[in-house]
């Protein structure tokens, strides 16, 4: 049986599913309990599961994550919410110094099956700090997993998988598409594999790797170029770290060309890692230089300049044609 959900509702359903199934799951963060989250991700959960398991916390991101560490050590599965990725930085110390390291530091004696959720990415004409996409910084940390869904179906399946994962997961939700569309989502329990990309569209001319809200923009760009008889293959990465390297390499070996599309700033981003990977593993198959279509190496502009920053379908389509005609 199915229901039509948008991404935020899929998140809620995933949380509901796991809170029901596993008594050790607890959900907390700022405004998560009574209000149900500023984006309404946790609506109804406090009423259903009680305030022992779904509750509000003081305004202290470092403590939210730090206490989750302690909870995980002591046998619970905390799923904490950081209100915006831009506010994850106070918790960065706890994340890089402890969340990602506890298992290795203790050679497996202490493990952290915890999830940190945060809305991420731009495109909602918000204030400064509410449009961050610094997934590359977190992906660079060994011991942490970073997951970014692009559809409601994927969001539910990946969040359930993240909560069940014995390793700590940073679950970034592209807020621009929280409510932009709905999709059939099974009402039952299901998991999607973390660490596996998804083939969104098959093609032969060029491989496009992307994730999050950009998947839709890439699909629009693909429509534009298909009228010129260009057929890209589109991969939705879904997990940034650990990355599905095989899927990327296999696809590039087939098409000989690759474009990475991401919102985040260009330099030192996830795109750079993918380009390095492709050069290492598919060098002899390349027929054009690996290319990135990304945000600029600038701070995300405020609302009036926002539309310049995020790659548009037109910008992506132009790049596709450049690469294919190389």
């Amino acid at each position, binding site marked *: 049986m199915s229901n039509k959900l948008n991404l935020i509702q899929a998140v809620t359903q995933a949380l509901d599913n796991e809170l029901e199934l596993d008594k050790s799951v*607890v959900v907390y963060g700022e405004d998560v309990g009574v209000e149900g989250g500023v984006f309404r991700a946790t609506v109804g959960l406090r009423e259903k599961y009680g305030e*022992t*398991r779904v509750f509000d*916390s*003081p305004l*202290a991101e*470092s*403590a939210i*994550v*730090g*206490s*989750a*560490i*302690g*909870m*995980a*050590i*002591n*046998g*619970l599965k*905390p799923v904490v919410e950081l209100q915006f990725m831009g506010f994850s930085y*106070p918790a960065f*110390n*706890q994340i890089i*110094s*402890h969340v990602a390291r*506890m*298992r*290795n*530091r*203790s*050679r*497996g*004696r*202490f*493990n952290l099956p915890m999830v940190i959720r945060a809305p991420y990415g731009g495109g909602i004409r918000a204030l400064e700090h509410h449009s961050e996409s610094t997934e590359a910084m977190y992906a660079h940390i*060994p*011991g942490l*997993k970073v997951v970014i869904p692009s559809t409601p179906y994927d969001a539910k399946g990946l969040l359930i998988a993240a909560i069940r*994962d*014995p*390793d700590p997961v940073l679950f970034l939700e592209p807020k621009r598409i929280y409510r932009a569309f709905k999709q059939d989502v099974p009402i039952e329990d299901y998991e999607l594999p973390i*660490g596996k990309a998804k083939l969104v569209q098959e093609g032969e001319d060029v491989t496009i790797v992307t994730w999050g809200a950009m998947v839709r923009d890439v699909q629009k760009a693909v429509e534009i170029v298909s009228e010129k008889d260009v057929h890209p293959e589109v991969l939705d990465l879904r997990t940034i770290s*650990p*990355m599905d*390297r*095989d899927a990327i390499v296999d696809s590039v070996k087939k098409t000989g060309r690759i474009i990475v599309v991401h919102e985040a700033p260009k330099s030192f981003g996830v795109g750079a890692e993918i380009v390095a990977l492709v050069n290492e593993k598919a060098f002899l198959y390349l027929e054009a230089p690996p290319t990135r279509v990304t945000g600029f190496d600038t701070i995300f502009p405020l609302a009036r300049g926002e539309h310049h920053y995020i790659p548009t379908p037109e910008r992506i389509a132009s790049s596709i044609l450049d690469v294919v005609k190389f």
Partner: protein
Amino acid sequence: MHLEDYNPLDNTMYQIMDKSGEIVKSEDMPSFTDEELLYLYKTMLYVRIIDERALSYQRQGRMLTYAPNTGQEAAQIGSAYAMEKGDFLVPAFRELGAWLVRGVPLKNIYLYWYGNEWGSHMPDDVNVLPVSVPIGSQFQHAVGIGMANNIKGENNVAVAYVGDGGTSHGDFHEGLNFASVFKAPVVFIIQNNQYAISVPRKNQTASETLAQKAIAYGMPGILVDGNDIFAMYAATKEAIKRARNGEGPTLIEAYTYRFGPHTTSDDPTKYREDEEVESWRDKDPVVRFKNFLLNKGLINEEWEENIKKELDTKVVATFEDIEKNSVYEVDDIFKYHYATMPPHLEEQLNEYKVFLQGGKNHVK
């Protein structure tokens, strides 16, 4: 004793045994058996010997940087002894006495300072978290442990340690705040040994005492003579009782002194006077406890000599075993980042192994 009776703003220090080993607050004197008293004293001697040996090995180039505990034995041992089975110890990095009391094998301790992660792999029944290098950050872990106990309806308590320097850190404050709001069963212990490396306590904060910071967070705070093992025990025990009863966290400031350097890479003569160090000698926690035991007729010099020899032999044997037999497996560097090693780590490990075995263009 009742924690609520103590107002940290009074600037009074809680003490049971004075610096000469006399009991000045007999009504709070813990009811230890003779065995217990001897065990506590032996542990203090053990700490000193472990430190001395470690220092010596370090100077010989056989041990890496080491943080000695001299002067803080009572603060560590007294407080930790108040904990019960199942309680969690959340250390900073200078808690040797507490580790020993809570069952951490010396081998683990030495392995850690020797540079091998297996030192932090505690036995299954030892609920002691690894050393926390980012100062103060461990407070929040203790809070989480406590919150989980509440959620699960269990009875355990988390005891967290920090130094005077750590009380300036944001995580210290966030941790205390969180713990209070959620009435987490946590005991926060500040080992105020008067120095954060070279920065003296008075430059760390403008507050008169560290204990009074508890007031801001709505929890009891108490300033304790950190060199008085009985006072440390009693205060911690009371705080633990409070926590276990669901009354929430407590902040204990253990007023003590760091006789040695911050670590073996530190030279305290650069920032403090010998007179000051000497002035603390007569407050030495081990000496006063020894006097107490001598007065009680429970020990004599011969006993002490024998015990010291015994402990020293054990320490030397442990260290030599580590030196000779401990291994550092290359695989271990990769194996423990995730529950299952992901393909890219496998690949990197294999590539490296190929290099080690003499790969294609191998350069030695």
